[in-house]
C-alpha cells in the first residue's frame, strides 16, 4: 500500500543570531527525516522540546518549504505553494496548533471563526453554515451559548476546542495536530482523544499527532516516531515503542512520564547539556548524554534501520539486552 504522505530526506535550517551583512550562521532544526504516513493511521511524533517536531509538521503540510528533501502526497510531489492545486490540497490538510490564542483572531467571535473556512471555500452560507458550526461546536464539547464569545473570554481549553472544530469544518483527510491536547484538562482531553479516534475510525482520517504527553500518544497513536535533535531515532508500533523502548533516549523519555500518585522516582535523569541544534555533537547526537555510549558513537551517525524487527538509530543496538534493562 502506498503511504498517503511520505517525507524523504527532509531538512530545514534556520538562521541563528543575526548579522547585518553577509550570511548569518545557520542551524538545522530538522536534519534528514524519512517518514511514511499510511492512510487511516495516527502517527505520533514525540521527542525533546526543540527537536524539530513542529517544524517537521509544518513541512509535511507544505506550510514551509523544506531546505532539502521532498514531501509526497499519494505518491505525487506536493504542488508548488499558492497554486490552485496546492489550495485544493490544503483544504484537505489541516493544522491544529500548539498555542490556541495565537491561532485565533481576537476580534472575531468563535462561531464566525469556525464558519470562516466554510465561507472562504464557498461551501456553505447562512443557516446551513450556522447549523454546521453548531454541530462542530457540539462535537468538540463547546456549548451553544459560547458561539458569540471572543477568544480571550474563553479558558485555555475552550480555545483549543475552537481551533479543533475549525480544523474539522472542512472535513479534512489529513490532520497534523501539534500539541492539540496539552492545553486541555484530562476530562476534555479524554473527550478530544476519543473524538480524534472516532474521526479516524469512522471517517478514515489520517493524522500526525505531535505531543509531549506520552500517555496520550500511547493511547491514540498506531505508530510513533521519536525525534532527537532533528532526526528520528526510533520508530515503531506505539505499544512496542512504549512497552519496550530500545533507543537510550526513548528509554529516558518513557521513564520520565509522571505518574499520578507517585513522585519523580525511578526515572532516568539525563545528564549533560540539553541538545542544541546549532552545535550538533559529532556522530550520534545523543552520545554526550547517553549512558551506554562509547568512542564509536562519537564517530558515526547511526542510520535508522531495523534491529530485531524494530527501527532504531543506535549503534549499540546489538549490545542491548532486550526489554527489562530499563
Amino acid at each position: 500500500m502506498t503511504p498517503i504522505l511520505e517525507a524523504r530526506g527532509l531538512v530545514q535550517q534556520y538562521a541563528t543570531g543575526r548579522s547585518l551583512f553577509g550570511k548569518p550562521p545557520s542551524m538545522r532544526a530538522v536534519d534528514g527525516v524519512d517518514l511514511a504516513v499510511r492512510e487511516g493511521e495516527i502517527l505520533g511524533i514525540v521527542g525533546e522540546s526543540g527537536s524539530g517536531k513542529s517544524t517537521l509538521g509544518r513541512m509535511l503540510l507544505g506550510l514551509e518549504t523544506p531546505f532539502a528533501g521532498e514531501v509526497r502526497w499519494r505518491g505525487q510531489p506536493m504542488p508548488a505553494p499558492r497554486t490552485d492545486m496546492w489550495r485544493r490540497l490544503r483544504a484537505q490538510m489541516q493544522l491544529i496548533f500548539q498555542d490556541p490564542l495565537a491561532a485565533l483572531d481576537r476580534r472575531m467571535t468563535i462561531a464566525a471563526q469556525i464558519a470562516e473556512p466554510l465561507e472562504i471555500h464557498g461551501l456553505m452560507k447562512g443557516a446551513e453554515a450556522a447549523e454546521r458550526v453548531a454541530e462542530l461546536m457540539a462535537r468538540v464539547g463547546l456549548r451553544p451559548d459560547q458561539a458569540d464569545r471572543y477568544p480571550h473570554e474563553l479558558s485555555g481549553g475552550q480555545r483549543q476546542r475552537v481551533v479543533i472544530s475549525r480544523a474539522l469544518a472542512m472535513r479534512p483527510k489529513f490532520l497534523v495536530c501539534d500539541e492539540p491536547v496539552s492545553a486541555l484538562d484530562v476530562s476534555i482531553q479524554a473527550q478530544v482523544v476519543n473524538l480524534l479516534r472516532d474521526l479516524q475510525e469512522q471517517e478514515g482520517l489520517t493524522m500526525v499527532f505531535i505531543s509531549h504527553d506520552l500517555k496520550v500518544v500511547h493511547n491514540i497513536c498506531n505508530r510513533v516516531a521519536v525525534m532527537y535533535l532533528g532526526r528520528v531515532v526510533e520508530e515503531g508500533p506505539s505499544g512496542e515503542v512504549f512497552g519496550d523502548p530500545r533507543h537510550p533516549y526513548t528509554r529516558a523519555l518513557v521513564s520520565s512520564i509522571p505518574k499520578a500518585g507517585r513522585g519523580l522516582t525511578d526515572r532516568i535523569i539525563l545528564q549533560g547539556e540539553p541538545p542544541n541544534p546549532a552545535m550538533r555533537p559529532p556522530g550520534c547526537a545523543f552520545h554526550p548524554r547517553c549512558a551506554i555510549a562509547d568512542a564509536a558513537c562519537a564517530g558515526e551517525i547511526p542510520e535508522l534501520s531495523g534491529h530485531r524487527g524494530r527501527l532504531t538509530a543506535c549503534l549499540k543496538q546489538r549490545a542491548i539486552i532486550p526489554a527489562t534493562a530499563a
Partner: protein
Amino acid sequence: MAFVSIRDLKVSFDGVQVLHGIGLDIGRGEAVGLVGESGCGKSVTWLAALSLLPAKARISGSVRIDGQELIGAPGPEIEKVRGARIAMIFQDPSSSLNPVQRVGKQIMESLRLHRGLKGAMARTEAIRLMNMVGIPSAETRVDLYPHEFSGGQCQRIMIAMALAGQPDLLIADEPTTALDATIQAQILDLLSTIRRETGMAMVFISHDLGAVSAVCDRAAVMYAGKIVESNEITALFAAPRHPYTVGLLDAIPELDVTRARLQPIKGTVPDPKYLPTGCAFAPRCTHATDFCTTDQPELKRQPDSGLLACFHPAGRYKTETLTRREELV
C-alpha cells in the same frame, strides 16, 4: 498564620459570576496544586489576586500576603508585590512574551526591577537563568526574539523570567504543558530544588495530575468556580472522595498495552451564567440524589484529613479500580 490567604474571593465578568467564593491558604515554602477542568476558574483566581484581570471584572473578597490586603490595594502597592513576592508563569507561552523585544532583555527587565542588576551583570545572570531552565547555548540566543524559539523554549523563558525576581510565591499556570517528558521532569526537578534552597512557595496549576502529584504537598480540586475537595497529595490520589475528583483520575490515559477508550466525565462544564441551583456537579454526578439538585454542599473539614464539599462522597476507592491505579503508577 498562612503566608498567602484567600478568603471568599468572587469574580464576575459582565454580571456573570465565575468564581463563587474561593478560600485557600498557602503556607511559606508550601507547594499546592490546583486542578480542575478547563474553565473552572483556576487562572482567574490568581489573575484576580494580582489585579491582572481586565477592568470589566468585578472582584470581591480578600487576598492577603503576610497580612497585607491586595484586593483593592492601590496600584503602586500591588506593583511591589508582583514579580517580587508573587511571580506568575502564564498559560500561553508564545503569546505571553513581547514579540518585538529580545528575550534576554525581557528577562533582564525583571533582574533590574527586583535585584537591581544592570548591564553586563544582568546579562550574565539572564544567560545563567536561561541555561538553568535548559535553553541550549543561551549565550548566543539571549538576543533572539520570541518567534525564534519553539513553544517549549518560550515556556522555559517565561519560567526563567518568573524566577529572575526570586519570588516568595510562584504561581505556575500550566508551566509544563508544552514540554516533553524529560524536560518536564527536569523543570519539575528545578522547581523542587529552588523551593528547597530558597523556601519559595508554589501554586502549581495543571491538568496533568501526574505532574501535580510529583511536585505538590497538597492539592485543591476546583469545579465551576469553587473548591470542591482539597487534601494531602497522597490521600487525594489514594482515596479521592468527591465524585468529580474520581472522574478526573479515571480520565487519565493509562500506559498499558491495550488502546482502551478513555473515560471522560460525562456531560460538560456548566455555563457560569446558568449554574444549577444545587451542587454544580450534580447533573454529571453518578451519586447525585434529589437533595444534591436543590442544596449546595459546603466545603467542610473532614474527620481524617482534607476538605470536601459533597453530600454523597465516594467511599474508599473500589479495590478493583485501586489495583488498576496501582498498575498505572
